[in-house]
């Protein structure tokens, strides 16, 4: 096939020999940026006016983990309820910005999103990483924090061990391997901390399992001994695990309140890590390892932050805080979560979350905790 010659300008004409069409185009090119810039200015003004109204706007919930995962499912379930309770009933969409264990998405909202209330980070795990890491790329306290929620975790052990609790597992005369994404990830580290106080246990965390599925598969096969599973995932797989007898859950991390008290989930009756710590000799609770474990417990209260970009105006933050509170209390939202067979849905309000974050900083800066981190997770303190 040959192209017709009229696809091109006649030979002598070029860019600067303008025809009417190109003049129009040039004018459009000049006008278009002006229109967009003006629109941008108007939008920005909208953001800082005293009455918050998101009508006609498109709100982005930035989820810092991948689509289909527990955080993502949670955010997608929440999105329509946020839309319902935000002033002006805007459209709320979920956008996944993944990478670097959730830091990339959190960092995007921190550094690049405009403080106009149109972008909210559903930042899972951010406080858990910010607290212990020496050179975290930003200060979580500067976000426009509007609340937080937390997820529970279960410690799942290979079925062949036929043990009833963590003490029995520790007594097994065999090296124990925990499959995890990284040995310095919060939950493997919390497990290692408690194991370090259970006598002469041979325990090693094997990192490199890129997903919970792979970590669990390794436990089911008997390749590794145990892994920590998000309780939503655990509850979804519970029947299958029980039936196959390939893996059993022994302990849960539990739900923490703002006074750092931990309680069991209503959905599965397993002892919490704190209870296991309580069953250890008194001396075990007078160690840097225990203090570090407590700091992690505290970080878990606000493990999933609802964060607006820094410098977001107060009135916008307030509107978001109210909308979140209302969404979390909506019976339909709770029913939706129930249908999905997920674990409990906990909400910590704005003021309490801000206080918790300050407390997290204080606890992780404790010299004893720092010493424990240097010992158990040197990679975090480099």
């Amino acid at each position, binding site marked *: *096939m040959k*192209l017709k010659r*009229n*696809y*091109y*300008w006649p030979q002598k004409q070029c*860019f600067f020999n303008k025809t009417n*069409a*190109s003049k129009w*185009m040039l004018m459009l*090119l000049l006008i*278009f*940026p002006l229109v*967009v*810039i003006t629109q*941008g*200015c108007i939008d*920005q003004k909208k953001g800082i006016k005293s009455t918050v109204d998101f009508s006609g706007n498109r709100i982005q919930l930035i989820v810092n983990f*991948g*689509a*289909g995962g527990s955080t993502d*499912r949670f955010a*997608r*379930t929440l999105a329509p309820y946020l839309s319902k309770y935000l002033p002006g009933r805007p459209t709320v969409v979920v*956008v*996944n*910005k993944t*990478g*670097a*264990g959730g830091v*990339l998405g959190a*960092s995007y909202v921190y550094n*690049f999103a405009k403080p106009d209330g149109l972008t909210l980070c559903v930042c899972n795990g951010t406080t858990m990483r910010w607290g212990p890491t020496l050179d975290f790329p930003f200060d979580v306290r500067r976000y426009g924090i509007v609340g937080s929620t937390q997820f529970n975790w279960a410690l799942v052990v290979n079925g062949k061990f036929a043990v009833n609790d963590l003490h029995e597992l520790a007594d097994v005369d065999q090296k124990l391997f925990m499959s995890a994404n*990284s*040995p310095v990830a919060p939950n493997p580290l919390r497990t290692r901390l408690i194991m370090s106080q259970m006598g002469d246990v041979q325990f090693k965390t*094997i*990192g*490199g*399992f*890129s*997903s919970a*599925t*792979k970590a669990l*598969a*390794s436990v089911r*096969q008997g*390749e*590794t001994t145990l892994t920590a599973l998000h309780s939503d995932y655990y509850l*979804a*797989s519970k*029947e*299958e695990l029980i*039936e*196959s007898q390939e893996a059993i859950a022994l302990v849960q991390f539990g739900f923490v309140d703002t006074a750092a008290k931990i309680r069991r989930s209503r959905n599965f009756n397993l002892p919490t890590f704190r209870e296991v710590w309580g069953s250890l000799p008194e001396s075990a609770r007078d160690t840097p390892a225990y203090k570090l474990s407590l700091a992690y417990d505290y970080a878990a209260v606000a493990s999933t932050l609802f964060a607006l970009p820094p410098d977001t105006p107060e009135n916008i933050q307030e509107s978001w805080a109210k909308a979140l509170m209302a969404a979390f209390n909506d019976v339909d939202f709770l029913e939706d979560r129930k249908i*999905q*067979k*997920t674990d409990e849905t906990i909400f910590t309000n704005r003021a309490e979350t801000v206080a918790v974050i300050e407390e997290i900083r204080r606890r992780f800066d404790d010299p004893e905790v720092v010493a424990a981190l240097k010992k158990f*997770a040197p*990679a*975090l303190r480099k």
Partner: protein
Amino acid sequence: MNDILHAAIVGLSSLFTLEVFLFMLIGIAAGMFLGIMPGMGGLTGMGLLLPFAIGHPPEVAFAFLLGMYAVTTQTDSIPAVLIGVPGTSAAQATYLEGYPMAKRGEASRALSASYFSSVWGTLIFALLFLFIIPVIRPIINMFGAPEFFAFAIFGLSLAGTLVGDNVIRGLTIATLGLFLATIGFTGATGEARYTLGFIYLEDGLPLIPVALGLFAVPELINLMARGSSIAQADGAAVEKGGAWRGFKDTVNNRWLVLRCACLGGLSGVVPGLGGTVTEWLAYGHAKNSAKGESHFGHGDVRGIIAPETAGAAQKPGALLPTVALGIPGNASMAILMGAFLIVGLQPGKEMLNEQLPLTFQMVWTVVVANFVVAVVCLLMQRWLVKICYIPVVILAPIILSLMLVGAAVNTGTFADILVFALAGIVGYLMVRSGWPRVPLIIGLVLGPLVETNFVITSQIYGYSWLWSRPIVIVLLGLAVFTILKSTISGVRGKNNNHLEIGDRKSVNIMALRSLSWWLGAAIALLSLMAIFTAMPWEYETRLFPVGLAGFMFVFSLIHNIVELLTPPESPIKTKETPVVLDPPNSLENTRRAELRYFVWIGFLLMTVYLLGFIMGLPLFTYIFMTVHRITPKISLPAALGIWVFTYLLMFRVLGISGPDALVFRLL
């Protein structure tokens, strides 16, 4: 068995109820688009379309999602074959043979072979599905870290056959690929390696921007410098009967199809085994087992059939553990499992008993969707292949825009685009100096699989896994056999190892000895820097990168010594004639033209950095075309089309906006 057959029939019939079928068609249409779009593919599609599926009954939601998912690897071969843009990892192997075929006017045959390979792949594995259900759990449990590691080694041994005529260069580049895969957090200790302080690099180098830059940029630059259309048989009629020939190719290579369907299906069933690795394995297998005349690297249809069949068979394969055990076969299936939970379904036993018809409906969806797309694409083929005949000055800005959007799908930041641009420069230099690019990608793909599983294996099993696990023994045996076979045939002079397209022309036409030497020196320097940087790290953190850097240093040193010792008069020998016609202009003019188009790409990056995708890409398209004297009758609709694509489709519908424009950040 009767129950299973009954469920299979019920599943098939439920697919043809009006609502389900309609949603499947919508899903297919979305999947076709996502497949064609560089950087998208099934995984991104699942994430983007999941919200649209919520709120529908399960049979409708899954028909929609799986209709989309099933066809993305079918249509991703369209840009790979027609415009040389391997936009998804699955399309990279197809591109190697498909694009040269398009260049010689056989696009229709290549595409047809690709569609029908996908149909056969899914169909064969869907039939095997029935027999695998009872043994799914033992199969999955047979694969632990040692098996994954052995599988990766087997993959590397096959990749060894793709290193090209200049083995030392191939080895250097393959090691470089493996080394680059060590960038980011290491699972063994949680330490970051070679991230240079960038959060972006903590997850390692992203595959899609690297592959797009490495393969598509040099091709496009070369194409623009030559100023012709993609199909070099310029003016020749579109091949007649190409679709039929493509179909016949799949039938004539039925045993290859069967083997690759089994390979793909199995790697789909075993979580973590599938993905790009399988497609490269299938490609390597096709090349290694090729009998008769071989044109690998220059457009051999077997190099399309193998990866396409394996890639397609993975899909019903990955579905199986997801529905049967609640163990997602791959990342896309993890999202599908999310959909299960959202609609209140429980993967597992229930799906193989009460919900078995729904399970079968899912499998049928994958098969039927592939068939529908094959038919639709064949009907559209006549028009599609004409893309190859459009002058490059019209096509180039559109391709560049698509590539940039595709590259930025990874994280949506400008860092993706920078990686793409850097990979483009490296790819161009490699082409110009005759270094092969395929081993780099294979190294990048296999690197994490090799290192992670080696570390896990050595920590848990010590060395006992080498002799106590039958699958490991078989896979390592196959790897040794493959290496021996290649070596022996190499010694006998029957080695069919060829460089991939792009490299050959460079070797004969514009290889620059000095450039090649400098590239070798740069790799040697990089190796030394890598070793010194890694010295303070923990043993487990530095083991792989230091080892690889050491090999890289030795290989690059040998390469450079050989280069110095080779008399300058004798060019690097190759066995085949170049497939790319000599450029019409002199070498000097071509180089100048190529440099000019690099400046254009730089201008594009600057425009996007300042104005973002939505404004920057249409503006660039218009300016590029206008400067190249394209009439506004074409440039205006093209710019408008790009705007509609970036703003309405990508941003408004799919929520992908790309990097933030500097102008708007400053406002």
